[in-house]
């Protein structure tokens, strides 16, 4: 399937997309606010601070380090 005409284009901003889809200005502002909050909540710093991130700070207990510690303790007890 020939698709040469798909090459010429200009990426529209979210503002322009909203206008094209007929999303009202008030709704646009609300969507921008929701997306802004989502981005803020999911920024790497934020997720690291509230402990919800999968990227754990060094030294934090994980299942494996916990198992290792239990094994070492058991060895020491013997």
């Amino acid at each position, binding site marked *: *399937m*020939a*698709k*040469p*005409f*798909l*090459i*010429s*284009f*200009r*990426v*529209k*901003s*979210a503002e322009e*997309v*909203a206008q*094209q*889809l*007929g*999303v009202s200005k008030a*709704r*646009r502002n*609300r*969507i*921008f606010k*929701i*997306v802004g*909050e*989502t*981005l803020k*909540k*999911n920024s790497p710093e934020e997720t690291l601070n509230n402990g919800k991130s999968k990227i754990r700070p060094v030294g934090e207990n994980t299942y494996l380090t916990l198992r290792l510690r239990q094994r070492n303790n058991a060895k020491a007890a013997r």
Partner: protein
Amino acid sequence: MPKLHVESDACFLNIPYDKKFENLCLAYVVGVTAFGFIPRATLGVPRHTRRLERIFDLIRTCNVSVHDLSRIELDRRPPRAPRFNMPFELGLAVAWAILNPKRHAWIACDAVEHRPIKSISDLNGTDFHIHRGTIRGIFSALCDAFATRPQTRTVPEMMRVYRLLRKAIPDLQKDAGTKGLFQARIFNELTVAAALLWEQQP
């Protein structure tokens, strides 16, 4: 037939509107916006015209269409019948593209390899994009389909935007007073949110 204005960046999404397909629908919205297209579905079209006319007018105004044939399955409720909407709309788009090769291109996707050619052998020789019913598969299929676009996005980037958009959905649904995604308002708002998330990506 009245001449319609073709939106150069509009992409007609021919997908099933059911609960099980919501995640994949979201993946299509993210994937299509990643390449600078604005997804359009029959959901966002005014309801004062006949459904078939609305669909055909929408195909005519979009310069590309994406057709997902992964859900041509038998309905559970009696009388059991396959869902022919998607292949029917694909047929309309193919006819329109044959008549207007410079104005329309179509892309067909399915979940299972070789199945589409088995069920629609008339399209033999067409490259179907196989997504295996996964979000990552859809992104990969769209990357392949839109390889000629200058806008290049990677699948991990798309996954990131997809996850962010998923997190924004409850607030958008709450505002729209709905629990689903297949309503004109929420569909358009998701598109705007996806475009905004892409804007924010480095």
